[in-house]
């Protein structure tokens, strides 16, 4: 509402100063762009905020430092891994890292 009131004042001043079709068009275009930007921001932020709030209220243990993983967690297996399997996992990671670096 405040935004609309300010726009009305600007338009009234424009009219009283001598109506200009081009100036009015420019104002409308500018305002249209601002509205589109605001809508896009809301579209991006809305789901993120919803997810964050749901996360914080449903799981207090994890809500303190929700830090995303940058690498996928290896798939769990049904049987306990032997030490050689664990080493194999390490070597696989190293190969992947070298591959990315190359």
């Amino acid at each position, binding site marked *: 509402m405040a935004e609309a009131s300010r726009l009305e004042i600007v338009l009234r001043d424009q009219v009283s100063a001598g109506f200009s079709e081009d100036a009015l068009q420019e104002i409308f275009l500018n305002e249209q762009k601002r509205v589109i930007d605001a809508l896009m921001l809301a579209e991006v932020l809305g789901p993120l905020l919803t997810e964050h709030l749901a996360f914080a209220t449903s*799981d*207090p*243990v*994890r809500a*303190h*430092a*929700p*830090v995303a*993983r*940058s*690498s*996928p*967690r*290896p798939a*769990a*297996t049904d049987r*306990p*891994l*032997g*030490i*050689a399997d*664990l*080493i*194999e*996992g*390490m*070597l696989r*990671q190293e190969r992947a*890292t070298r591959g990315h*670096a190359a």
Partner: protein
Amino acid sequence: MSTAALEKPVEKTEKATTSTSSSAAPAAATPTRRTDSKSILVGFDLGTNKSCILTGLPGSSDIAVSKIISSVVGYVRDGIVDGIIAGNASILYGDDALRNVLHVNLVAPLDRGVIKHRDAARDFLQHVRSLADPGGHAEIRAVVGIPANADEQSREDIRQCATGIFDRILLIPEPFLAALGYRDDARLGQPGYVDPVTNSLFIDIGGGTSDLCLVQGYFPTPDDQISIGFAGDAIDDLMRQDIDRVYPNNGLTHLRIREIKENHAYVGTIRKPIDVKVIMGGKAHTLELGEVIGRAGNELIDKIYPALTTLISRASSDGIVTLLQNIIITGGGSQIKGIDTVLQKKLSDDSFESPKVRLAGQDYKRYVALGALKAARAARENQWQYLLA
């Protein structure tokens, strides 16, 4: 004696798989020397201040050598009269070097967990080799602990320094090795025994780095590990700054400050007085260091705690409650009084579900090397890296 020898049998782990047949290793990469001799497996915790070496033979669960060595090399100064240094040695290692501090130039090969002085590192590794294999003819296969998230350059530095000294090598992050070493293999599968390799969080506080690692049944990814360049040495530095401010010209050496820390370090509410007797200018003085020691110790908590909560947030949600019951502190930092209770209280105060922080126990100096020796015994033939001189 330059080292403290510890004799303790290790539990039987996996069957050693170090047969002489090399299935996947490229033939061209096979070293030509020592192939007709016996192999010795080495579990090696290459620490900034203290190193631990354990050795054993393939196919055996016995430990042949168990030593903890100060990570320092002393180069005997020119002009030292014959007989002052035992055997007129030109290089001393570990506590021998520290005892002869007046006659040697001391060099610490590592800084913050990574090699800083290559020549000294090579000399130190050569000494380790001589401890593992006094005859000098065996093939040495070493699993070496490295800081969590050590970069490729740090790894390459170790490989280069070890080339020509060890024959095959595997570099594995220290906190993961600590979990392997801490695992009681005899109790695996017993009701009520929680395998630390299945679901735990290890905090390994050494001299140069504090390493935190999630261990959840697979080899930790880079996201599961955090290494902080703040540990025992940084506490020494903070104490030094504070002591210099309060007691100028105190004349305390770095080694003396470390000794004071090792005897009195604590975290939590400031404790006063902690009176420490020191010799300054040949005269005995008593310094009240309660606040100095407490401030430095609490700085460590301030560094570790955010990393701890970050790793908890990254852990698999399936076992998070069990994980919170298995937070284990090892390394020299585990000897700081109150560190377990302070971390546990902070987690509780921040509403983490029934956290339990434990100390690894009296064998804290050996767990990384013990895990490394277990890894050496279990490593497949094609998992070793060859070091070609």
